């Protein structure tokens, strides 16, 4: 840029010289061209200078070339100036305009792509949302949208196949337990009936009778297990939709009354007689109380006391035991038994847990100072 300006200056001086050579006219066009007589021939001067520009009312920067020439015996000083157009301004202007263009393009592309992508990915996100809302326990059909994009379309087909498979497997599993339990009842009934006929038939000896009653006991265990498995499945299948206000204090008091006849362990019950109202299926409330109390009685020290507290917020049941559970995390697993001592089905607490899950009650277990306690928060 600078050299261009200088070249122009030199070219202008050359023209001025040529003009002076032709006719001796002193002309000036201040501040661009000034011709004056000089006394001495000095070397040319090239410099920057600042001159006031009245038209713009500001100081402007000029490039100035002054050369001294003797033309036709006369000495001249030729000063040529060129306004240095503010190159930084230009630069800034250029950069700014570029940037503006880039930004505009960027914004345009951004929104353009966004709109396009939205349209493109819409089926994908719709399906993703549908999959997020998918629940294996509900029978609501999942509605997926098709897409023109092959990958999305394939994905949709695969997801649909998977969901149908998972659904049918889940259904089979759900019915399996119920079916098995159901189908077992009749053979059990036959065995039981036959044993009773044998017992009442021809004379037996004491040993044979003992064996037969032991079989009766095992049949009873099987029956219990069956009943509880069916109950678990029914709770899982949401077959208990009868909601009633249950007074937990009354409920647990009835349970305690039933159990007191069957156990030497003392049971103490406290709480608010009028307040403990909980909204749940009355049958499940009975099962919940029965299982918790029977669990406490089974695992209590023979001379211990089972303490029960019932309010409208919590139901807590505690019993004294010798040592903490080895695997408290497995407490609610099916068929988990900490000891073989008590012949339980291993399903009582699993059922309690399921009932709590169904009604979103919080159940917790603690072992402090030789006392096992269960707390259900309603």
């Amino acid at each position, binding site marked *: 840029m600078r050299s261009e300006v200088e070249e122009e200056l030199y070219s202008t001086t050359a023209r001025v010289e040529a003009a002076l050579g032709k006719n001796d006219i002193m002309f000036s066009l201040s501040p661009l061209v000034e011709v004056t007589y000089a006394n001495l021939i000095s070397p040319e001067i090239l410099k920057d200078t600042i001159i006031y520009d009245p038209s713009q009312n500001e100081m402007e920067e000029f490039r100035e070339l002054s050369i001294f020439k003797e033309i036709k015996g006369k000495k001249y000083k030729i000063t040529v100036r060129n306004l240095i157009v503010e190159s930084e301004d230009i630069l800034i202007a250029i950069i700014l305009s570029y940037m503006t263009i880039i930004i505009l393009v960027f914004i345009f592309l951004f929104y353009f792509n966004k709109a396009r992508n939205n349209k493109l990915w819409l089926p994908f996100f719709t399906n993703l949302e549908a999959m997020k809302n998918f629940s294996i326990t509900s029978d609501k059909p999942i509605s997926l949208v098709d897409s023109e994009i092959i990958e999305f379309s394939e994905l949709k087909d695969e997801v649909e196949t998977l969901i149908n498979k998972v659904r049918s497997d889940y259904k089979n599993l759900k019915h399996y337990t119920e079916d098995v339990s159901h189908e077992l009842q009749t053979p059990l*009934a036959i065995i039981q009936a036959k044993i*009773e006929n044998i*017992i009442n038939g021809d004379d037996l000896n004491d040993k044979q*009778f*003992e064996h037969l009653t032991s079989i009766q006991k095992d049949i*009873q265990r099987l029956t219990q297990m069956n009943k509880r498995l069916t109950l678990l499945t029914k709770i899982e299948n949401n077959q208990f939709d009868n909601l009633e206000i249950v007074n937990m204090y009354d409920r647990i008091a009835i349970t305690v009354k*039933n159990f007191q006849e*069957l156990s030497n362990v003392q049971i103490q019950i406290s709480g608010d007689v009028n307040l403990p109202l909980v909204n749940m299926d009355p049958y499940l409330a009975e099962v919940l109380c029965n299982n918790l109390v029977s669990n406490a009685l*089974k695992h209590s020290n023979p001379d211990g006391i089972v303490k029960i507290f019932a309010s409208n917020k919590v139901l807590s049941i505690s019993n004294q035991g010798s040592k903490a559970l080895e695997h408290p995390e497995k407490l609610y697993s099916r068929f988990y038994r900490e000891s073989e001592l008590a012949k339980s089905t291993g399903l009582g607490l699993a059922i309690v847990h399921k009932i709590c899950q169904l009604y979103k009650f919080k159940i917790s277990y603690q072992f402090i100072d030789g006392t096992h306690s269960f707390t259900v928060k309603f």
Partner: protein
Amino acid sequence: MKILIAEDEIALQQSIATYLEKDGNTCEVASDFNEAVYKVDLYEYDLILLDINLTTGSGLDVLKSLKKKKKESGVIIISANNSLDDKLDGLDLGADDYITKPFHLAELNSRIKAVLRRGKYGGDNTITFNEIKVDTKSRTAYVNGKSLGLTRKEYDLLVFFMTNKGRVLSKEIIAEHLWGDNSDLADNFDFIYVHINNLRKKLTGEGAKYIKTAYGSGYKFIED
């Protein structure tokens, strides 16, 4: 008494019949839905044991047709399904009782007798055995007209014994009759022993020594 057993499992049907015939009942059997409808339609029974899941139809439909014909037989429903809905459906349709498989024959027998007692003809609210008389309405037992003052459990126990007289009853059966599903808690059966002993004492105190031990650990209610 004339009893119809509508049950498609032949083995169970025969076992029930064997047990009930020992008491002098006449048992007829129906092995499927059509046979049950046919027999119910044609004959009069004092009591019908009705399986809900008959192979070719529902026992509940047999019950409906029975009620439509205004027959007065007592009905006990037998079901493999321990669901409350089934139970309520059956009782709503006019069944007298409901029992879930598997059951003890002694328990079934006890229920049959209870239904027959409540029955419209010939039924009264008393069970009598020699000098013992039980009033099932007021739930009191008398020996020679003198009240025994039994507790609730002792009363239940006596009725259970009397309705199954001459049968060997194991502690398992007794426990289940008295405490139902909770009986598994009574692990050593000490509690049954206590109740039986108390009942025995009260009866023998009045000279009624009918509760005998059988095979060491079972019980039998029988005349000497």
